[in-house]
């Protein structure tokens, strides 16, 4: 029990009708007042509103509160807000506790109002039980080094590096290949302006080379990462030779790869004239076409959007040769691929179709698509292609196109055109497969080093897909370009500049204070077995002279070590055993 007598204030939120429409708030307020150590309780329409926060501040003073509980929504979005209210009113914000009576109560029990009210009371009682044991905590301040490491020398990496340099920071730019440029080096022209990739790449490369703030390291990869936000120690490897750099932030711009179909998928790899868009880009770029093609057929979503096929998808599908259809469905199911839409392939195919038309006006260019996903102003680009007399044919998942051959040994694509209900045969000279952007294998390794989670589709995961698109769950590490999912050049540039802004903001402040929610080792109990060091995914524990130590800045307070410790020598600040056990007791016994 803390030395001073706890005086808890409870603020219970209606959240409009979100909570108030289900839970009987006045009753909960009345109940809260009856709880031990609760000195004050009130209800607010929106505790997160200015009025609510003001009331918290005022009552801390008026009622002499030294603990505050807000019963409302999730700490994930709102705890920082209420904590700062406490701070502003002069009490340590670790003396704040939150009870989630929305997500964990009103939203899930909409149809059982009385019982929801009872549960809200339980949650408040539990919060009060823990609050009684809360203790003030300090947040150590960290130095932030004003140097950044940018991993990946593609357009995103180049952009991020340049932006950071222009903001006045020193940058290490590393690239695993012997030269900078990434995928842009392989590409021919860029949609929708049809500029030569060189026009985009060259200026960026020149600027990077001429910048005295950027140190470029080629054929270099990350082999180890130690430290934490503001103070990363990164080991770089160039072949055998290793080198350590100290940086404050890391921007991950390792890009994405183009999916290469497995040999045999659409007979890829069996005929020279069956190629990917990437290969067509190269052919057009190198201008090494001997004979003008009479017809070019492009097939979209090869290895993308490969969800399983369900019977109901077939509803409204014109009855044709069922047996043949089913056979095709089964084959389609077996086809390997990625579940997501790669987003850029439609525009990329249209780009190349227009280029082919320009080069060979007589050529008949057909694009076999599932949906034409030319979002944004790219719709106009689509119109441009139609005016150039490129033909678009919609096929359906259930009947993928098939590659066959004419008696004369010419390639022929057999496709079912869903919009005319006709099966058509397209003798052609080139078949071009549009394949998705997929995560690099190296990326997975890097993710493990950096301790960034990977999402179900294999790309690096953002801290919050909506609100924090370039942040990661690791402070000080940011994502730029296709590392976090397929992006075209302008999108990569925007995300790179965003990452540079976030990293720059961090470094410009030179200091930051960290969470106090960390593990503490009771050195008398610790036997230095090293179990904690083993299981800590953040590398926050190390054993020295037979005793384990915590690196506060790295510790995310997950508690794994505390649970694992055979001697119960590790406890979590702000989640002490007393706090948790009293909460459990309150939950189970109904007493505080």
């Amino acid at each position, binding site marked *: 029990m803390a030395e001073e007598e706890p005086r808890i204030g409870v603020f219970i939120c209606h959240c409009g009708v979100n909570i108030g429409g289900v839970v009987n708030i006045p009753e909960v307020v009345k109940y809260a007042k009856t709880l031990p150590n609760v000195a004050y309780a009130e209800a607010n329409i929106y505790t997160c509103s200015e009025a609510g926060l003001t009331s918290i501040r005022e009552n801390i003073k008026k009622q002499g509160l030294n603990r505050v509980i807000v019963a409302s929504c999730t700490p994930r979005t709102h705890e920082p807000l209420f904590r700062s209210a406490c701070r502003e009113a002069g009490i340590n914000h670790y003396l704040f506790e939150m009870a989630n009576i929305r997500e964990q109560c009103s939203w899930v029990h909409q149809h059982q109002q009385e019982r929801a009210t009872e549960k809200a009371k339980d949650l408040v009682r539990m919060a009060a039980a823990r609050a009684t044991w809360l203790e003030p905590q300090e947040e150590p301040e960290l130095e932030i080094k004003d140097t950044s490491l940018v991993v990946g020398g593609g357009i995103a990496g180049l952009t991020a590096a340049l932006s950071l340099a222009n903001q006045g920071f020193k940058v290490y730019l590393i690239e695993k290949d012997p030269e900078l440029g990434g995928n842009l080096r392989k590409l021919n022209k860029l949609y929708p302006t049809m500029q030569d990739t060189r026009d985009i790449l060259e200026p960026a490369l020149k600027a990077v080379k001429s910048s005295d703030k950027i140190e470029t390291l080629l054929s270099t990869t990350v082999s180890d990462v130690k430290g934490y936000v503001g103070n990363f120690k990164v080991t770089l490897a160039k072949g055998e030779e290793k080198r350590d750099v100290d940086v404050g932030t890391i921007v991950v711009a390792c890009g994405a790869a183009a999916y290469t179909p497995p040999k045999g998928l659409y007979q890829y790899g069996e005929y020279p004239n069956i190629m990917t868009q990437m290969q067509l880009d190269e052919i057009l770029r190198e201008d090494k076409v001997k004979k003008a093609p*009479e*017809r070019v057929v492009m097939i979209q979503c090869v290895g993308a959007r490969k969800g399983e096929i369900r019977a109901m998808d077939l509803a409204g599908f014109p009855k044709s040769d069922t047996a043949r259809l089913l056979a095709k469905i089964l084959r389609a199911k077996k086809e390997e691929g990625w579940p997501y839409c790669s987003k850029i392939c439609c525009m990329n195919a249209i780009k190349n179709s227009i280029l082919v038309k320009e080069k060979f006006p007589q050529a*008949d260019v057909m694009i076999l698509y599932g949906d*034409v996903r030319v979002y944004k102003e790219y719709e106009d680009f*689509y*119109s441009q292609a*139609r*005016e150039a*007399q490129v*033909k*678009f*044919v*919609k096929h359906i998942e259930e009947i993928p196109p098939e590659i066959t051959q004419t008696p004369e040994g010419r390639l022929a694509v*057999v496709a079912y*055109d869903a*919009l*005319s*209900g*006709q*099966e*058509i*045969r*397209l003798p052609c000279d080139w078949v071009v497969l549009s394949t998705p952007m997929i995560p690099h294998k190296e990326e997975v390794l890097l993710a493990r080093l950096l301790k960034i989670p990977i999402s179900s589709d294999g790309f690096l995961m953002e801290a919050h897909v909506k609100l924090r698109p370039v942040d990661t769950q690791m402070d000080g590490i940011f994502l730029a370009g296709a590392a976090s999912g397929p992006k075209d050049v302008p999108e990569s540039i925007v995300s790179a500049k965003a990452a540079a802004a976030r990293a720059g903001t961090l470094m410009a402040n030179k200091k930051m204070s960290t969470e106090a929610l960390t593990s503490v080792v009771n050195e008398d109990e610790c036997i230095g077995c090293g179990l904690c060091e083993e299981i800590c995914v953040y590398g926050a524990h190390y054993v020295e002279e037979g005793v384990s130590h915590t690196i506060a800045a790295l510790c995310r307070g997950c508690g794994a070590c505390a649970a694992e410790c055979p001697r119960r020598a590790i406890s979590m600040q702000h989640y002490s055993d007393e706090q948790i056990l009293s909460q459990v007791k309150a939950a189970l016994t109904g007493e505080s």
Partner: protein
Amino acid sequence: MSELDLGFMSEVAGTPRGSGILLCIQCGRCSSGCPVARLTNDHNPRRLMEMIILGLKKEVLPTQLPWYCLSCFTCLDRCPQGGDVGDVMFAIRNLAVKHGNMPAGVAAQAKALYETTRVINPVRSALDKRESMGLGKLDTEGLEEVKKILKKTEMDKVISST
């Protein structure tokens, strides 16, 4: 399985009133508003546009398909791309006629035009009534000029061929 005519779409796009074909995104607003398409599955302007785009010339020009359209122009008003579907219908009817596909009714009107400057021959009773009411004869003073125009535009050939 249909073989495709590579040039059909450009042929249509090249005819006057045919350029709309290049704008089509197959959204289906024309077909769902078309009074004929609602009555028979044989006619579907959207599908017809697709068949032209694909190059299904043999399936279109010699058939009844070009002749279902009422040219009520509902589709012209509704096409979000300004594709003027109803105009494209005229374009393919012009091509169909070139390929000798012309309904008797149309041929009859063309013939009447060539012979009388009017596409419909008046019934006797109407002519009598005119006279009795002193409305004056229906003049055919323009006949020679009309014939010249039809010759110059080579429509006379079509007429004589039927």
